[in-house]
């Protein structure tokens, strides 16, 4: 640990922690990150770059890190790729691995790409992999896929749990640096709910890296500790390890809290991460600023890093990133980094500044520390294989770059100035304003209740940040009715500063050969950006996509502004005219687990089950999902496959009696003096004269005249209808009805109540259905005379109050018994027992589909597709001819809906007795040239039914006028001829519906 400096940093030296990096054991301290622990042993090399496989080390110390991405493994299944080594805290037993290397980090075969870099310029893929065309699928695409991506995807199921919560607060402060802390102090103690969040393991932000500052007389770290204690005492909720990832409408902020990745032992029932959805009345964004790299040849070599980050590694972690560093800067801030490192014993080789003049006090302090200073210089190269060993600098005079001079070093600390962190502000659709002096975008207006404070709006220095934090927070508090002066702060040993901004630094060598990196993670150089402009890209959005600048997982935190400056220079335009790419959530890479939260495994999505579902499960049902419901599809006996089981269920139902769980049908109770008028207006059929105790089939259309839903509607009383809908359509139909009621007909005295789940619905179908049911309905004679087809009644069934319907979706004698939901299973078992004498058969949705198709009954959504009118479906009989109006009436009168040649529902019987494929296209002439004219398609097709041969329903142009004609269904290996027939295959006279008439 030769790079660890005693008495520096905030790590806990009493707690050594062992972890592994590429299988090698490394020891750090509690409070270290993987990056700081590796740097403490002098190791900068942590990964290989994406495209050129160049050796890379950390360039930053925080979440903006583009290079030091590692794999982390905490246990079985707990592997994560692309973890930023600068954010991953140490814990006992942590296993870490470098990425993108083969066979080893120090010797990588893919680095041959680096030597061939001239081939891999911007737009390389677009240009190179064009020819020959047939190479794409077999050669290029697999190669690119294998080579693409960072890290390795996890292969095991993640055993961790993830959580989410909602939170409401008065003031949310994002960022716990000086501005955020001052904002929290300003808001605290006023009876408001104040929340302060920071993505790092501890609050403090810049203060953690600048212990020399003295705030209101107290050393920075003492002031920080006291302030945090005060805030907690005042009830401020302080959340560390919590990243605000996105800012959404109406002050909704998404935050991810990392709960256990830093713990040696994870307590039971404790989630790894928690997604917070925070609704804040006011938001203070105090996210600070990100330091910019300088763009010069070799600026990516391990050991080249941001000066401010080197200062952080020293002051927060007690780690010297180099013993002989050289500073290369265009901003005052890096001078202080040099002073700090020198103060910790480093031999600073030189401070090289691109500016011709700098402040006298900086020069004086450099002189006092014996640090050589070079002003007006550029950097033109670095050397060193896996670690920087020298920096080449050149004097610049006007436009002339002088001779190069090598400065030996073991680290290069660079600073190209600072970019305000505007990501969350941009999520609010906040406007940005270009500031020429600072050469950066600053926040302007936002539609959200949000202020931005401190370095995030271009202010520099601890005092400025503190004062602005208080002032901006006060502005937000005014909106909450709090009037008070903003607290004042005075800071000594502060480090205010300024700087200049550069495009890529000038060089005496060929710029065309420079590997001056702008986007480290995606290996985009300044040369690539200029090439993109030369090749015609004008907008920054196009330049970005052509070069991939800013498209890596760091979302251009380091590269966007440098990229913009270079593109603007190449275009000869001002930066705002070239534009800034859009920031999108999440702010930093976020685990899928955090987004999924509790929604995994059995809790992935709601699975709705009926009261009878458990019986079906006990009796071996195979299920299918219908909307959110799971429904029994068929009940196989031992050895049966679906076809066999369904064939048996169909036959048994037609032969005697079948029992079916229809509880999932949507049910809406329509009540009020205007109930009949309302139902009459909604459905195509006439309902005004439907008698109490009668049912009628109803078709529901949209305004456009196309079928939306259907169901049977019973009149329970003069002012009460029981409406049924399809299973999947229940919520949609209720919404549609409410929409009409509230917006079109608010004058009607009628109300809608969802009773889908009030009732368990058991359907009995078959010639013996009435015989089975009669003993349980002593108060009602189930005969053709007293309770004919399409009747309904409120009676007791097996001693339970019920709504009994005489309806049929099979063509057999049919009843639907509705009992209060919790009693459904009991009644089912009663009927099941009693039905044994009739060889009762439980059937599922598949048999229901087959039996209804044999009768030509449509299923909305299967035989209709949103473009089918009642007339197309052969159900013109369901449209009331004398009705004054109903939903869809005018739509149906449109010329194209009454034109001839529309697709109409018909039956099909294949000539060779084969079963057609649902969805298969239909043509009239199989010998016509391709592309053939398709006149329709198969909507339903079954061969398990009782007709004795496969049947199909199809929509065919002018189908109802083609009865008896032969049409053709081209399939991959043959064409099947089929005869157009009536859609009713069984009992067209409906004689089987009559009690006493059937067998």
């Amino acid at each position, binding site marked *: 640990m030769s790079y660890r400096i005693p008495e520096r940093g905030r790590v806990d030296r009493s707690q050594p922690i062992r972890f592994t990096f590429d299988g090698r054991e490394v020891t750090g301290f509690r409070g270290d990150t993987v990056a700081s622990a590796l740097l403490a042993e002098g190791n900068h090399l942590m990964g290989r770059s994406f495209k050129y496989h160049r050796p890379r080390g950390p360039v930053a110390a925080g979440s903006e890190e583009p290079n030091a991405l590692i794999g982390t493994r905490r246990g079985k299944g707990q592997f994560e790729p692309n973890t930023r080594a600068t954010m991953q805290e140490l814990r006992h037993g942590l296993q870490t691995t470098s990425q993108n290397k083969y066979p080893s980090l120090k010797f990588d075969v893919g680095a041959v790409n680096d030597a061939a870099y001239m081939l891999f310029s911007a737009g390389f893929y677009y240009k190179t992999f064009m020819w020959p065309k047939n190479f794409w699928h077999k050669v290029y695409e697999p190669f690119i896929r294998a080579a693409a991506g960072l890290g390795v995807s996890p292969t095991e199921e993640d055993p961790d749990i993830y959580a989410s*919560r909602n939170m*409401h607060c008065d003031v949310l402060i994002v960022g716990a640096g000086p501005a955020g802390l001052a904002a929290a102090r300003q808001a605290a103690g006023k009876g408001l709910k104040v929340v302060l969040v920071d993505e790092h393991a501890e609050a403090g932000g810049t203060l953690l890296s600048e212990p020399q500052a003295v705030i209101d007389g107290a050393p920075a770290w003492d002031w920080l500790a006291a302030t945090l204690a005060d805030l907690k005492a005042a009830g401020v909720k302080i959340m560390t390890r919590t990243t605000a990832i996105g800012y959404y409408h109406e002050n909704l902020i998404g935050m991810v809290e990392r709960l256990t990745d830093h713990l040696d032992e994870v307590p039971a*029932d404790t989630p790894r991460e928690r997604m917070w959805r925070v609704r804040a009345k006011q938001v203070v964004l105090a996210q600070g600023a990100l330091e910019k790299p300088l763009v010069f040849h070799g600026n990516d070599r391990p050991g080249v890093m941001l000066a401010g980050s080197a200062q952080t590694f020293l002051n927060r972690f007690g780690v010297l990133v180099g013993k002989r560093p050289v500073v290369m800067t265009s901003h005052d801030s890096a001078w202080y980094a040099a002073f700090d490192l020198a103060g910790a014993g480093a031999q600073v080789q030189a401070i090289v500044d691109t500016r011709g003049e700098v402040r006298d006090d900086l020069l004086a302090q450099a002189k006092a520390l014996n640090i050589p200073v070079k002003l007006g210089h550029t950097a033109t190269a670095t050397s060193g294989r896996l670690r920087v060993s020298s920096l080449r600098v050149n004097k610049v005079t006007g436009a002339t770059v002088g001779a190069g001079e090598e400065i030996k070093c073991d680290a290069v600390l660079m600073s190209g100035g600072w970019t305000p962190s505007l990501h969350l502000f941009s999520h609010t659709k906040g406007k940005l304003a270009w500031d020429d002096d600072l050469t950066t975008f600053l926040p302007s207006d936002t539609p959200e209740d949000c202020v931005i404070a401190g370095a995030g709006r271009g202010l520099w220095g601890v005092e400025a940040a503190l004062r602005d934090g208080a002032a901006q927070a006060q502005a937000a508090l005014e909106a909450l009715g709090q009037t008070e002066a903003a607290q004042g702060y005075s800071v000594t040993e502060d480090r205010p500063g300024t700087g200049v901004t550069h495009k890529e630094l000038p060089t005496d060598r060929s710029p065309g050969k420079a590997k001056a990196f702008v986007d480290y993670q995606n290996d985009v150089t300044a040369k690539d950006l200029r090439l993109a402009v030369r090749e015609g890209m004008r907008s920054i959005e196009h330049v970005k996509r052509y070069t991939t600048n800013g498209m890596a997982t760091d979302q251009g935190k380091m590269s966007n502004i440098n990229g913009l400056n270079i593109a603007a220079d190449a275009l000869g335009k001002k930066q705002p005219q070239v534009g800034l790419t859009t920031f999108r959530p999440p702010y930093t890479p976020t685990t899928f687990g955090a987004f999924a939260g*509790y929604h995994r495994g059995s809790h992935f999505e709601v699975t*709705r089950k009926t009261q009878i579902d458990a019986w079906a499960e006990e009796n071996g049902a195979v299920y299918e999902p219908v909307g959110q419901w799971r429904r029994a599809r068929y009940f196989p006996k031992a050895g049966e496959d679906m076809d066999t089981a369904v064939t048996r269920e169909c036959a048994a139902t037609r032969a005697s009696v079948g029992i079916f769980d229809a509880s999932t049908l949507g049910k809406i*109770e329509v009540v*009020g003096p205007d109930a009949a008028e309302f139902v009459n207006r909604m459905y195509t059929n006439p309902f005004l004269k439907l008698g109490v105790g009668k049912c009628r089939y109803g078709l529901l259309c949209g305004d456009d005249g196309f079928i939306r839903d259907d169901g049977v509607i019973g009149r329970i009383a003069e002012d009460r209808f029981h409406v049924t809908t399809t299973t999947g359509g229940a919520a949609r139909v209720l919404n549609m009805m409410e929409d009409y009621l509230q917006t079109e007909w608010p004058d009607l005295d009628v109300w809608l109540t969802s009773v889908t789940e009030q009732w368990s619905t058991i359907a009995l179908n078959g010639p013996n259905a009435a015989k089975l049911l009669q003993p349980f309905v002593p108060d009602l004679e189930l005969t053709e005379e007293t309770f004919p087809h399409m009747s309904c009644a409120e009676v007791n069934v097996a001693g339970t109050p019920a709504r009994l319907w005489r309806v049929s979706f099979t063509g057999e004698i049919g009843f639907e018994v509705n009992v209060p939901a919790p*009693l459904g299973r009991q009644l089912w078992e009663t009927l099941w027992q009693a039905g044994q004498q009739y060889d009762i058969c439980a059937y599922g949705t598949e048999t229901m589909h087959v039996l209804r198709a044999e009768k030509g009954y449509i299923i909305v959504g299967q035989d209709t597709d949103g473009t089918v009118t009642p007339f197309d479906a052969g159900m013109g009989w369901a449209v009331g001819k004398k009705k004054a109006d109903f939903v869809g009436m005018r739509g149906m009168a449109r010329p194209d809906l009454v034109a001839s040649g529309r697709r109409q529902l018909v039956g099909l019987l294949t000539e060779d007795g084969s079963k057609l494929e649902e969805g298969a296209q239909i043509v009239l002439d199989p010998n016509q040239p391709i592309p053939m004219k398709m006149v329709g398609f198969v909507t339903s097709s079954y061969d398990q039914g009782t007709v004795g041969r496969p049947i199909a329903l199809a929509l065919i142009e002018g189908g109802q006028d083609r009865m008896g004609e032969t049409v053709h269904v081209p399939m991959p290996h043959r064409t099947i001829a089929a005869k157009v027939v009536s859609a009713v295959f069984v009992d067209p006279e409906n004689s089987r519906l009559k009690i006493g008439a059937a067998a």
Partner: protein
Amino acid sequence: MNALTSFPQGQEPETLVSTAAVTVTQVPHRARLSLRARGDLAPLDRALGFALPRGIGGVTLGTACLGPDEWIILTDDAAAVMTACAEVSLPHSLVDVSGREITFEIEGPRASELLTLGCPRDIDAIPDGTARRTVFDGVTVTLWRDTAERFRIDVWNSFAPHVAHLLASGARELAAEMA
């Protein structure tokens, strides 16, 4: 209209989870009626024997106002309520929904926090003795706040297992947080 007066199951409270943070119990069924009406409600007040709460969220004698024209009535005698209202000439809708949903009672020092796992409303801002329709983990529920630390949620039968699952895992998560 025929009313259901007894249920064969759910007569005993059933504890789903009990931790130091919160206890979740499925409570026995009660008769539940959905009432809809608008205009001068005095005739309904007289028939019911109490004044319907007028403000959304208000609760009077087990009856909660859930919307501008909507109330949910919890009662031990659904038939009596129906009979009384049948005579009211003010247009209204009274629908028995006793079998539609079940009720979980959530009680404990972290009961309010448990609800934040699935409900986007500001739970702390809900006064005691009120009720409202809201969502929990994407499921429509009626949320009653009886006291600072005791809530009830009514949820449709088929959504109940999903809601119960999150309540149970949340109760354990909150207990772990307290440890």
